[in-house]
């Protein structure tokens, strides 16, 4: 068996040396990658003094909240928009903020519905989770089994191929592709809102259906318990936690309303924090969306932010 193992080892070592050597020599994280925005968001969260108004959620929060309007409406609070990507899952979103919550902060979780149905339902191709580790290595502590599984399936493979391609381009003196607005780091403003899309032409989102599938009550209860646990810790630190619903397109609401109302009823029944408004209060016309059923455009973002301001004001009164 030894000659066989020696040959396998030698052959593997040659492959690893060629690919790994090139990556080790030339690969650099892309400074303008969309996920690199997580660095800025955490920097702002750490450097902003309390009391802050911290918005937590997926990319719907990044695209749909206008923090300057929030800052004007609540001069006592400094807004921080932590929304980045729905695939990070609820547990991760809350866990990355939790250690940094301080007395007087208000944490507003504006959650897309899939995050409340199955906390890991948004698990995407594993290369996303490999890529995130480049910009935020400690994220690995918040990964759960589905993320590791996705990483192992083809995530590391796809990521290493991308790293290899980037390395080749850098070696040849060319600039690697860093993505296109609004999915780049420089598409965000200082608060953490995506703003590049505000000047862009919206796409027709009707071909991209919103969440509306079958929903199990037990899954929603599990998500609600995660939020309650987070709220308990925040309360102990003297912070307030509120919950708002993510935006939803009007045209698709009729089909999905049974599932959405079930989620709402579980939340109202089991949550220990205030729910800011009803599900139908965050339903907007289809032309208020930018490119998916989660991302609002300028008009939609303004409406959604106004709705939030009104509801937060009432809750904090």
């Amino acid at each position, binding site marked *: 068996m030894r000659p066989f193992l020696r040959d396998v080892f030698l052959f593997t070592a040659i492959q690893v040396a060629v690919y790994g050597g090139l990556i080790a020599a030339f690969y650099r994280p892309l400074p303008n990658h969309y996920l690199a925005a997580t660095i800025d968001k955490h920097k702002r969260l750490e450097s902003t003094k309390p009391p802050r108004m911290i918005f937590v959620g997926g990319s719907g929060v990044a695209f749909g909240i206008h923090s300057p309007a929030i800052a004007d409406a609540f001069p006592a609070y400094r807004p921080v928009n932590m929304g980045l990507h729905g695939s990070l899952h609820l547990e991760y979103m809350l866990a990355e903020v939790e250690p940094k919550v301080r007395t007087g902060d208000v944490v507003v979780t504006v959650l897309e519905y899939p995050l409340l149905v199955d906390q890991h339902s948004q698990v995407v191709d594993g290369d996303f989770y490999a890529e995130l580790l480049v910009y935020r290595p400690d994220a690995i502590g918040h990964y759960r089994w589905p993320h590791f599984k996705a990483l192992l399936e*083809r995530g590391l493979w796809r990521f290493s191929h991308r790293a290899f391609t980037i390395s080749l381009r850098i070696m040849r003196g060319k600039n690697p592709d860093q993505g296109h607005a609004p999915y780049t780091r420089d598409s965000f403003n200082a608060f953490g809102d995506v703003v590049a899309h505000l000047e862009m032409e919206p796409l027709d989102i009707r071909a991209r259906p919103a969440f509306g599938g079958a929903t199990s009550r037990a899954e929603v209860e599990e998500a609600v318990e995660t939020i309650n646990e987070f709220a308990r810790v925040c309360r102990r630190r003297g912070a307030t936690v509120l919950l708002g619903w993510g935006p939803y397109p009007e045209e698709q609401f009729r089909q999905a309303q049974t599932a959405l109302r079930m989620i709402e009823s579980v939340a109202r029944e089991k949550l220990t924090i205030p729910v800011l408004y009803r599900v139908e209060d965050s339903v907007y016309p289809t032309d208020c969306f930018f490119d998916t059923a989660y991302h609002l455009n300028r008009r939609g973002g303004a409406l959604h932010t106004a709705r939030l301001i009104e509801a937060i004001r009432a809750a904090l009164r």
Partner: protein
Amino acid sequence: MNFISTTFLVFLTLVFAVYWAIRRRRGQNLVLLVASYVFYSWWDWRFCGLLLISSLVDYGVGLGLGRTRATRARRLWLILSLVVNLVMLGFFKYFNFFAENFQQLLASFGLTVNTVTLRIVLPVGISFYTFQTLSYTIDVYRGRIKPTKSLLDYGTFVSFFPQLVAGPIERAPRLLPQFQSPRRFDAVEAREGCRFILWGCFKKVVIADSLATIVDPIYGSPEGAVGPQFLLATMCFAFQIYCDFSGYSDIAIGTGRLFGIRLVRNFAYPLFSQSPAEFWRRWHISLTTWFRDYVYIPLGGSRKSGARRAAAIIATFTLCGFWHGASWTFVVWGFVNALAVVPATLRLRRPRARVTERPAGSRLFPGPGVLLRVVATFSWVSLTLVLFRSPTFAQAGHIFAAMAGAMFDPETWAVTARYVLGGHEVYQPLYYLGVFIFVEWVQRGRMHALQLPRWPRPARWLLYSLLIWMIFKEGATPGNDFIYFQF
């Protein structure tokens, strides 16, 4: 767990290390049994229950058959096995099909009945391991093998992970004795296994998955395509499904070799066949021989002539089509293939080519007659695959009509030429395919294309590195599951 994943690579390395660290046969079987259940539960742990039930029932039936010589009792044991396995398969694979067809049948008589359709998840591989366990009980019943008394050996035979979910469908007389005898590591076999795995991965990732980028959009939105595009997509689908499925089989065979287990050959260059009958002897060999031995021969196909033999062939092929999926399109696909095979089987003017023989003769440049027969057979096979690939008869009809109508319309050919030359996502897979066909043609006398005994080691390693690079590159795009997982 998908073969084309880093998960499988890690899994295989671990199982290989533990397996050969154990010297005793029973210990090695236990490792394979546990690994196989882990492998299967990777999709959904609940599927393991079905595998366990199937294994336990047929193990018990085997013991029961071994303890009695009374014909009536033996028949009852066999019926028990058939009922349990076929009910399981029927429920998970065909329940909704029968319920919907029953409803439509009643509706045609003006009766409205609300039949129940269930949201049933088809357990991956159920069609394969059900047939494998059935073959065991039938062979024990027929007295071809003695029942095994070891549940461990039998469980390993049923669940052996390389061939569990998409074959090759093994027979007990061939595979079970391998689990019952000691295994010693054989470096030649292991190297050959690695070459099988590499070539299988190449076929799946580089050829099949890249051809899917041509086939899927055209079959997914047939209203936007013209006749020659359907022709192109259909021929590409023939190669896609061949590379997808034979790639899986190669990986399975190679993985088996790493553990000192030899699995049956499943494909013998079927796309170079010179007749539909030869194609079916070279395509999915483990399934076609299963149907031959357990359906065609019991129906009298081998002993009768004329109409009886033709009827046996038609019944066998139609059933084989239905095995592929719970849809009438598969049934008709099986039926039309039978129609093509019947005349040759009835005439049998020349001796059958054995699957171990090189297809299409031994010459590098074949004569016009051979070439014509190969092209004609491939064209026929491709056309029947329209039924296989289309979800409905309406779509298949649309595609056939578009292909026939566009033959003499130069504009549709110009549209297709622009489509082919329009982007690398179309011409690159075709370029890969061209190289692949050439390599397979040259190597068609061997078990697989990487058998290159005369090449010096550095040249072989360079070739392996090139293939690995292509797999690494093409596999970095979102992959497709193996097509036969759905069956």
